[in-house]
């Protein structure tokens, strides 16, 4: 190799080394910055910022990128909901959820999943959601205004009235309205009738969720919601059955069981009962109540439609306890 070629090679090696060193320094400094912290607002704080809330302004400003802007607001809505739900902050604030969903659906009025999932997120009670069935209904109503032929929105409004507002008359009215829409499934009119006749009945709730589970067009998340709610209904059934066993035990033995082991030993159960998510049920020996394990993902259970039997306990207070939850 000529001296000229050698010097060029050496120069290239030095340049490469300098570049690698500088890059390593950048990575190292970034790691150091992370450890030291930053005087800027934390991501938790900035995550709760929404500079523009006017759907009409955003719709105009997005020019021909409305769909992409809608996607961005939708992703932000999911991040906001999921991030807040999973945060360890005791004061979970979902205040941006509705504005984000409103923006996403204004930018893309056919964003059906944003209406339907958004309504589920909004109606979910605290701490798993903002507990705003009114906003859920407003969002679905907006979807229905933009696509009056979509029976799913009417069904979902009925569902919010049914499940979260416990307004079975309105729920039946919306199921009836959904049934009258084009392409609505046959079972919808039956659901309307059942809701009107036996609103709040656990059997009618089960029917509602089972039909959602069977819905071919339902998105994965809705299907998993239906599975979850059915598991909750199963848990309610099991809790009732277990409380009846506890009552029988108490009446026959003259004392309340102190633990499941007492009930198992007496032959009423074959083992410690577990919920559909495979967490053991908890027995409250003082009140004779059966409850979910606090770690069970089925918490919190919906309000039971069945009055729970009064149990007189020898070990507990002498007054009948807890007619209903």
């Amino acid at each position: 190799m000529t001296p000229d070629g050698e010097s060029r090679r050496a120069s290239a090696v030095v340049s490469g080394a300098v570049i690698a060193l500088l890059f390593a320094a950048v990575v190292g400094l970034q790691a150091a910055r992370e450890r030291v912290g930053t005087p800027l607002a934390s991501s938790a704080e900035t995550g709760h910022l929404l500079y523009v809330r006017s759907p009409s302004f955003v719709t105009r400003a997005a020019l021909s990128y409305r769909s992409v802007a809608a996607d961005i607001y939708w992703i932000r809505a999911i991040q906001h909901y999921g991030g807040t739900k999973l945060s360890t902050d005791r004061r979970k604030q979902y205040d941006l959820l509705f504005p984000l969903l409103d923006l996403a659906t204004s930018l893309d009025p056919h964003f059906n999943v944003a209406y339907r999932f958004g309504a589920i997120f909004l109606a979910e009670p605290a701490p798993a959601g903002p507990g705003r069935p009114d906003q859920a209904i407003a969002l679905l109503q907006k979807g229905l205004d933009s696509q009056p032929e979509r029976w799913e929105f009417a069904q979902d409004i009925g569902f919010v009235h049914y499940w979260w507002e416990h307004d079975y008359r309105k729920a039946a009215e919306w199921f009836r309205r959904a049934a009258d829409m084009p392409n609505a499934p046959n079972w919808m009119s039956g659901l309307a009738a059942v809701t009107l006749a036996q609103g709040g009945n656990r059997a009618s709730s089960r029917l509602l969720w089972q039909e959602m589970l069977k819905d071919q067009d339902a998105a994965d998340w809705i299907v998993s919601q239906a599975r979850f709610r059915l598991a909750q209904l199963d848990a309610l059934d099991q809790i009732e059955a277990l409380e009846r066993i506890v009552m029988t035990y108490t009446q026959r033995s003259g004392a309340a069981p102190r633990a499941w082991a007492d009930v198992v030993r007496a032959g009423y159960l074959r083992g410690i009962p577990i919920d559909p998510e495979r967490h053991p049920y908890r027995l409250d020996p003082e009140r004779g109540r059966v409850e979910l394990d606090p770690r069970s993902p089925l918490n919190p259970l919906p309000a039971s439609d069945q009055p729970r039997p009064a149990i007189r306990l020898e070990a507990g207070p002498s007054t009948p306890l807890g007619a209903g939850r």
Partner: protein
Amino acid sequence: MTVVPQIAVNVFKESVRDKILYNLVVFAVLLIAVSYLLGQLTAGQDIKIIKDLGLAAIATFGLLIAVFIGIGLVWKEVERKSIYSLLAKPIRRSEFVLGKYCGLVLTLFVNVSVMTLAFYLVLAYMGWRELPAVRAGWPAPATDPAMLEAVVLIFVELLLVTGIALFFSTFSSPFLSASLTLGLWVIGHFNADLRQFETVVNSPVAAWLARGLYYALPNFAAFDIKSQVVYGQPVAAQYIALTVLYGATYLAFVLAAAVTIFSRRDFK
């Protein structure tokens, strides 16, 4: 008229030398990376978002090429003073302008075609890996051919943007040309607001002016049917034909103005 294709081919070769086609690599990487990441973020909406993003990226990359290459087409030759040697040859000024335009159109055509191909390949892969039950829930198939209608209108829009950029570059600086072209492109998306201006103002003159601008300015919003095709909604063939005709006519007007201005320009 063989001069026009020759100039066009030269412009295309120059854009290849300038590594303009590298944007295709960026496009492909962006789309593949986003496709992977979106699955984790979007609660089952990845196919819709990839369609939105793919079509928007085709339009954006094309727009950037149309504006930033288009404004330099004539200006570069003037700046390098190569315009003198070119015009000394038996080339008419109209042929020069049209040749430059066609060269950039060829570059855009190759770009849009390759981006569309990459877009469909990514969508085909996404569709293939999904379960049939999930696919059945989509409003339109992953590789819905109807999306080509949106691509066609994006391309016609880019032809018009290129024409406008070339028009401005025949008499102004690159910075001014870029600003004016992008400004017109933005205003062209507010066409519907200009149409309704009379409902929000009391002044008949302002209303008349807005109405005049509505008819005179290019209506770029008309070329945007991305949302419709993503949801598989039918777009009438008559709408597409009329919009293409509108774009072609506006383009002819802009090119005629560009040729006229360039023909009268004094380079001494």
